[in-house]
């Protein structure tokens, strides 16, 4: 055995002794990591290093265990996070969607929204004032917002008229949804008529009250009656 080999062997023996000694003093760091993991999991509140160490066997180093544990959970479904001066296990932010149960309710678009949308589609780019003129009622903010949110309409260029009003145009999403290549593909009035869509009469005596606000949005009865054939 060379002198060097001897020296190495000696060092190893020393290390072994140290390890044994520390084993006696405190559990190995891997074991401490397990402890911290279990405590953070089971605790209803974030735990500080002091609190962790208070529960662990004498001589444990919760900070070091936390460094290891934190690393272990990197990129996992849950993470070890610091909350103030305490520690907790939390869901990875990108997986928050799993903690939500989404229920989708499909509703028919209101009459006001449909009409507004139709006017925009047929007359684009068009302003709010024009829509109101055609519909004969004011367009509620909510209706436009809803269509914008659905991404069926968007803002077009401002009209170069006094007040420079914004215009609305339909979007690609709109065209996709309705299976149109272009808004120009929408059937014209004549075609609508020949398709029987204009072959209607107003409900008797309904003329003066036809012009109503957006309040009657939900009322589908009028429409149903009008297009009965």
């Amino acid at each position, binding site marked *: 055995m060379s002198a060097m080999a001897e020296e190495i062997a000696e060092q190893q023996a020393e290390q072994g002794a140290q390890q044994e000694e520390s084993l006696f003093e405190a559990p190995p760091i891997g074991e401490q990591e397990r402890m911290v993991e279990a405590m953070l*999991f*089971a605790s*209803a509140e974030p735990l500080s290093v002091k609190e962790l160490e208070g529960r662990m066997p004498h001589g444990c180093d919760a900070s070091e265990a936390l460094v290891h544990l934190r690393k272990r959970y990197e990129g996992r479904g849950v993470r070890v996070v610091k909350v103030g001066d305490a520690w907790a296990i939390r869901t990875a932010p990108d997986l928050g969607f799993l903690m939500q149960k989404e*229920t989708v309710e499909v509703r*028919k678009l209101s009459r006001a*929204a*449909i009409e507004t949308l139709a006017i925009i589609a047929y007359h684009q780019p068009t302003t709010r004032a024009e829509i109101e003129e055609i519909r*004969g009622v004011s367009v509620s903010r909510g209706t436009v917002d809803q269509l914008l949110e659905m991404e069926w309409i968007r803002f077009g260029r401002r009209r170069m008229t006094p007040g420079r009003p914004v215009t609305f145009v339909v979007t690609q999403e709109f065209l996709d949804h309705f299976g149109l290549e272009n808004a120009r593909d929408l059937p014209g009035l004549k075609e609508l008529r020949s398709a029987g869509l204009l072959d209607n009469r107003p409900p008797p005596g309904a003329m003066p009250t036809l012009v109503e606000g957006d309040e009657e949005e939900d009322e589908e009865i009028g429409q149903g009656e009008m297009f009965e054939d």
Partner: protein
Amino acid sequence: MGAGMAEDEFDFEEDKQEEQSVAERMAAEALIVDVDGFEGPLDLLLMLSRTQKVDLRKISILQLAEQYLAFVEKAKALRIELAADYLVMAAWLAFLKSRLLLPPDPTEEGPSGEELAAHLAFQLERLQAMRDAAAKLMARDQMGKDFFVRGLPEGVERVKRVTYTATLLDLMQGYARIRTKDEFRPFVMDRDSVYTMEQALERMRGLIGFAGTWTDISSYFPSGWENDPVKRRSATAATFAASLELAKEGKVILRQGGTFEPIELRRREDERNG
């Protein structure tokens, strides 16, 4: 269990069971004092069987019966009122004992003493087994004591999302509704494609005089209404209604070869004659 007794009822001086050792006597007394702690006669039998100091499978049921009967006797001597089920068991064990001791009576029906004893042994063994199983179960690691659930559970949030739909038809009808608003005139209909019964009647009254034989009613359609499906439908309805009206008036006779066959019309001859 209802053994109406109290410790002060004991009179240890009066214990005359001299043949028993002191230790045995103490044990038996403890047993009786404990009668409140027993969960029924089977539990008591199991307790007594332990004094035999053998495996439950090798237990002597005869000896056990005697032990039990002695216990009941002793309770009586001590004026301890045992619950009814203990006495029922005593009576049954006395019966079992006689069966086990006497030679089998071939005229007697029912299970033999050995069969009854075997079942009692089975019951005792089963009760002991369930007690052991219960102990093993309770010795397991338990939740909230040895292992723990998540301390900070996150509830699943219910999110309601509403999506709106509309069809192209909705859109076009919506537009049509607005655009035709201005064209509405009160009580005036757009009659481009509507042929009324009045119109049909007027036309047919003028024509039936010339038709001598059976004629399909479709031949009465006004010219140009046959090809457009919308117009044709209106003309058919109006002409049919007018034909019925004429038949009602006794001016024509209608006939149809079968369902969906052409409806034919002929002028009523007697009307011309009369």
